[in-house]
């Protein structure tokens, strides 16, 4: 047990996992985006707490970037996309919510079981951050796998990025330059996907990726 500092770090990381699981539970697009914003907010709080714990001021910048880009800008943009695309509000999941949630919890258990023994030498805060970050990444992948809608896939992708950030800050931070470049690459990816979405929609009149399969060359 690492005292109060550990408790708060643990709470924030746990809340991040919870937010990821909440994404699995949501079946409305707008609600999903709201949860994504909360996800990023928790991430930035967690990074700021790390900055405080480690006495690393550059992490405050990271936290600010996380807050500005991921918690405010991207959700706003996503909401706009949803509005402009007029995407229907239900998400068609591939499997039901119950099994997906079970799988999500299973992934958390798996990542804890894998990461905690491996990182036995590291300090407690970093250990639990890395273990929980892995579960956030895995749940993000699960979201991308179980959802058909392109927008929710983007959300899954962004939550993966949040998980990676959590792991990176837990491990004594990455250099600011790397962080900024990662942030920009995510942004670029986001823009590309956004444009892509509009193109898909223009072309096929839907953003359901299932519809794209019908047009892929392999099927014909």
């Amino acid at each position, binding site marked *: 047990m690492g005292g109060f500092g550990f408790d708060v770090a643990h709470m924030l990381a746990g809340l991040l996992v919870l937010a990821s699981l909440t994404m699995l539970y949501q079946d409305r697009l707008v609600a999903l985006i709201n949860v994504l914003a909360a996800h990023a907010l928790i991430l930035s709080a967690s990074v700021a707490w790390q900055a405080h714990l480690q006495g690393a001021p550059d992490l405050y910048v990271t936290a600010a970037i996380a807050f500005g880009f991921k918690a405010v800008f991207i959700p706003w943009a996503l909401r706009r996309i949803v509005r402009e695309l007029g995407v229907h509000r239900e998400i068609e999941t591939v499997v*039901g919510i119950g*099994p997906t949630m079970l799988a999500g919890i299973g992934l958390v*258990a798996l990542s*804890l*079981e894998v990461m*905690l*023994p491996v990182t036995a030498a590291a300090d407690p805060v970093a250990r639990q951050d890395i273990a929980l970050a892995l579960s956030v990444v895995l749940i993000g992948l699960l979201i991308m796998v179980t959802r058909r809608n392109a927008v929710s896939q983007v959300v899954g992708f962004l939550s993966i990025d949040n998980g990676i950030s959590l792991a990176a800050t837990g491990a004594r931070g990455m250099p600011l330059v790397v962080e900024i470049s990662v942030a920009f690459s995510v942004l670029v990816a986001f823009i590309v996907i956004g444009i892509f979405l509009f193109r898909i929609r223009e072309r096929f009149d839907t953003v359901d990726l299932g519809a794209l399969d019908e047009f892929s060359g392999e099927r014909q």
Partner: protein
Amino acid sequence: MLPLVLAGTAVLLASGLAGLRRAAPDAARRIVYGSSLGLCAALALAGLAALGAPPTVLRLPLFVPWVGAWFRLDPLAGFFLFVVNLGGAGASLYGLGYGRHEPTPERVLAFYPAFLAAMNLVLLAADAFGFLFAWELMSVTSWALVVAHHHEPGNRRAGFLYLLMATLSGLALLLAFGLLAGPAGDYGFAAMRAARPAGGAAALALLLALAGTGAKAGLMPLHAWLPEAHPAAPSHVSALMSGVMTKVAVYAFIRIVFDLLGGPPWWAAVVVLALGGATAVLGVLQALLQRDLKRLLAYSTVENIGIVFIGLGLAMAFRADGDPIGAALALTAALFHVFNHAVFKSLLFYGAGAVQAATGSRDMDALGGLIHRMRLTSFAVLVGCGAISALPPLNGFVSEWLTFQAILLHPDLPQWGFKVMLPADGALLALAAALAAACFVKAYGITFLGRPRSQAAATAMEVDGFSRATMAGFAALCLLGGIFPGVMIDALAPVAHALLGTRLPAQLALPWVTVVPVAAARSSYNGLLIFLFIATATSLTVLAIHRFASHAVRRSPAWDCGFPDPSPATQYTADSFAQPIRRVFAASLFRAREVVTMPPPGDTGPATIEKTFCDPFWDWGYAPVAGWIDRAATTLNVLQFLTIRRYLSFVFLALVTLLLAVALWG
């Protein structure tokens, strides 16, 4: 005392001959069931006495001359002797009255005492040969009882399936004992204990024992025969098979894994825990979907076996990690549940038998309203339903509570597998308990409550005195077990001590007979006080209300929101009661589907609803295996039509190959 017990068993075995007297079936019935009742009662007392006594061993010059037959009576065998013969005595007493409805009594009476004797022999045998002999005798005699009503459709299939699985189980146990005996090949249990196998052989023996005993107990995925075979037998034999014979299989598992094999590795506990959890939930879910009362009870047996195996898996886990108190707690919980299940499942099968005797049907959708016509039966069955649903202050709750307490001890286990597995098993156990409550609300509500759905149900008569006495006695046992659980826990202490080297703290010395499994700060439960509180609160309330408030009663037609319908068909049925749970849980697990077809507007034809569900174990487990065997048999069929020269060449080739093998490895 062991010679006396063996003599009693032998008399039991022989008394079946009296049942062959076709001329005087009534006298035969009285002789067979009366003598079984007396002998079982004596053997149960002997089992109780053996709980506190040191083990006794006896060698008789039977079977293989140079090995002989070893028998041993130790606390574990004593406890199961008590459970088996308690169930046996109950079934015999019940049979005295219920046997009157038997169309072909000689088919039952001849095998019934032999079945009881065979179960006792399994418990007493202390060498592999005697054990397997008794095991197979138990299988064959119970098979004969299953096919006693072989004219009814489905029973012959059930018998065939049962025989098949019994063979499989015997084979697995044979191989397990082969591994246990080791290269020296000494089949006495004492020798097996002295030279325990290690590594791969031990693991294989453990898995074989799990398969062999699990197939008999009804552990998934080897449970498929159980819901077919148990209901097919006459009801008191069903009670024996479900309540008692499955416990003999549990005994065999404990004997092999805890006694003969010694400390199993921790992964084995994970396997047992996973199987136990799955068995508990899937078993009760299947039970919930049934509308045949006895099939429902049989599936519920599968569930309870799952709960027992969860307890055993916990004991294995704690033992593998060197936590003797946890292991003793889990083992005590499992054994307590063994006793409880024997009591309430017997009671419920007696109740089902009474319903069948009174109405001629076990289809719940043809019953209803029996509470008005069968007062004592309905009350006793209500107690049994409460006990099996793990409701305080009855006995079923205490054993499940102890299992939960063992689960709550689990953070002391270091392996991550357990840390994830045990909370999941806890949730599965809670789910199974809640589903069991739903299942027995359904069973009781459809069968005994509401309005009669058939003429037979409307004119049912209460059953005979023997049956009622048995049911009342077992209902009282359910209550006593729940109020004084400390007695049972203390009685089980020698068993835990013999197997694990430690015991739970003595409970009876505590004030107010509280149950404190580990420490007072952790948890405690007091069945007596809970019972007293409930009894006091109920009677005080009734008194106060009838003293100070109105006690007038007016009878009127049912309100039913203003639109009562006189037809009993408008009531909920077994299927409709299960519909929400079927939709939530069984839609994905059992692919339960409902198809509603409405006639087009203007058409006066009836609307129909069609419900289907499938058993994944049949579709993905048994059916493919049966298919492979069928195909292999067809292929090998060619071998039956060869020339004599070909056959000779096969024999010659086999001989040469074997010789070559000997030359190479010898």
